[in-house]
């Protein structure tokens, strides 16, 4: 079963490989992993999609916290979050089929970012299943090159994985009060 975890870690050399290793050595399969800085330049957010039984999640989270670099881990449930992925795909597109491809691109609300005499390069974002469907539609044409970012995910509404919480100089009570005020 696919489980999405959002992990805040200290932005340190080797941290991504340490997190990835901590999954693989326990035998968990990583379906996708994506990392990038947050608004706090010392904190990296890693989104991991794991193939794991749901009752294993608390244990997986506890094992992550064994890494001193890990600051905060949350499971992002499907109903309470949304996930997006970006894909760039280069398709062989002679003059004869180009307009067919453009039609498919329009239907999927994708965009053409580069074009040459023989190829078009398309950018598409969305949930992974949409990207999968898009690939299927393009398959009759020749796929030359394809690259996906893997999922990134964020919680819906007011609930959040607040990076300010891991900043030891921030007073948690004040933070909570501030958020109440905003509401």
């Amino acid at each position: 079963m696919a489980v999405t975890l959002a992990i805040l870690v200290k932005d340190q050399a080797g941290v991504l490989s340490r997190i990835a290793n901590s999954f693989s050595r326990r035998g968990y399969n990583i379906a996708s992993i994506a990392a990038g800085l947050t608004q706090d330049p010392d904190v990296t957010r890693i989104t991991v999609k794991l193939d794991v039984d749901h009752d294993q999640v608390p244990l997986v989270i506890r094992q992550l916290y064994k890494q001193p670099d890990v600051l905060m881990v949350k499971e992002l449930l499907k109903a309470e979050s949304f996930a997006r992925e970006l894909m760039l795909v280069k398709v062989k597109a002679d003059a004869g089929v180009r307009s067919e491809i453009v039609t498919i691109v329009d239907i999927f609300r994708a965009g053409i970012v580069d074009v040459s005499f023989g190829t078009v390069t398309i950018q598409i974002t969305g949930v992974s299943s949409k990207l999968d469907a898009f690939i299927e539609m393009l398959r009759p044409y020749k796929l030359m090159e394809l690259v996906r970012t893997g999922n990134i995910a964020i919680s819906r509404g007011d609930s959040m994985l607040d990076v300010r919480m891991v900043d030891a100089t921030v007073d948690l009570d004040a933070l909570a009060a501030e958020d109440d005020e905003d509401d």
Partner: protein
Amino acid sequence: MNGAEAVVNFLMQKGVDVAFGYPGGPVLVLYEAIYKLKFNHILVRHEQGAAHAAEGYAKVTGRPGVIIATSGPGATNLVTGLADAMLDSVPLFAITGAVARKDTGRDAFQEADITGITEPITKASYLIMDEKKLLSIMEEAWQLTTEGRPGPVLINIPKDILALEMPSEQTPLRPFRRVEPELKKSKDSIAEVISMLKAAKQPLLLIGGGCVISPEAPASLEAFLKQAPIPTAATTMGIGTLKRDHPACLGFAGMHGSLQANEALDQCDLLLAVGCRFSDRVVGNPKKYNSNTARKIIHCDIDPSEINKNVQVDLAIEDDAAHFFKALSAAFRKAEEEDKADLEEWLQVIRPWSDRLRETKAKMQQVITRDYFKPQVPLLPEYVLSEIAARYKGRDPIVVTDVGQHQMFTAQYFPIESPRSFLTSGGLGTMGFGLPASVGAAFAAEGRPVVAIVGDGGVQMVIQELGTIDANRLPIHIFIFDNATLGMVRQWQSLFFNEHYSQSELNNNPDFVKIAEAYKIPALNVETPEDLTQALDRMQATEGPFLCRVFIRTEENVYPMVPAGKNSDEVMMPGMDG
């Protein structure tokens, strides 16, 4: 002050009174600082020896064992020791030299990515690339060794940083807050523990290494057992928490544990497991163990990632063992005040269970006395160990073993008198652990006897450490159990591989007595009961190290035995029916 002096100063400020290590290129500056600052450093004969010696020291004292090694091969030689410490929760602080920063990643001479190599077998491994963070990172790492569940850390320092004049101010590490799921502490569920206990007719307390490590756990366990004498079994790592002659003590459970402990593990209706991790040597088949739904399991461990890892439990407590026993005592007292009659009734209910286990214990004792304790030639390891143990009775010896049959025989027949006094490689099962671990133990012994029981296989993996023992005239009593075979391998081959003794024979063992003597360590051969008595007499009368090569029966197997992947209901024990 250069980086090296800052490192040595740091160690001295932490109260480190001994480090174990081996010099080499990138750490020469560090050894210059050790020389100048007169830091107490013990030169081992192989870096693996340094790691195990540091483990021995840390296991006895509870303080981090410190290791120093050079880059590349020096560092990779630590790997087995670090992995061993990781599995047995031993605090180690390993410092390795690395090639200069400008050479990093260029496959320079003696370069190996030890930070990466040790990442999965340490709590944390660091490569220092900024001299302004050297001491801040060392401080963080030092705290990590003993924080929560102890374990090893490694700090890899490039040689140019060691040689560099230290900046007057260090950059403090940015403080972060970890936002973790709240721990389920003892106080939150102690009432539930009490009610589960009172509902049980056949409760068992299983104590693991966490009860040895937590300084106040053994005393608070004993205090609780005074209130409620629940049958108590240890895991191999928990040996020493409770004295063997304590009325509640069943000995240790698991693959070669006592019959009564394994009977209890199999038949209990409530298992209260504290500071243990349900290793496959304790519960071979977790699925089957869990399939008995009539049995309730309570698991208390300081490391929350151990809960529900191997065995699914009914109640989880994420706490230190001593906290748990204290909370349990207090709650029990309260329950007693509220309804004394009710509790006394419960104590009556569990009595037949305790009596039954005691009967098994007596029955097993009969077999042992009848079959194993008779003086004979070739000597039986059971007999030899009970004779050795008798010589140290009441002297609170530190008993160190290697890995294999002799290890299990020692666990069975050498009564341990206090916590932190049975030093063995439990999780990793590292042959070669024993001799160097006894070196570290000798530096922590404060006058207590150090007894190293090792096999003829394991000792040959680390025999060069006799040099360290001689150089420091360490008063270690070494017993090599020589059965001319890799005993435990042979045992499995005899039971499960059609007696095909593939590559397990050691029938050209060297003359260990001559080897010891070459290292200026007095030594004797022991072949008969009379030899043993004389050797033990000589040993007691000799100052400093002493070695006995004890020839024992090759065919002797360790029993009881629960085969791998099975549970304690399938224990093998020849002679029990006779």
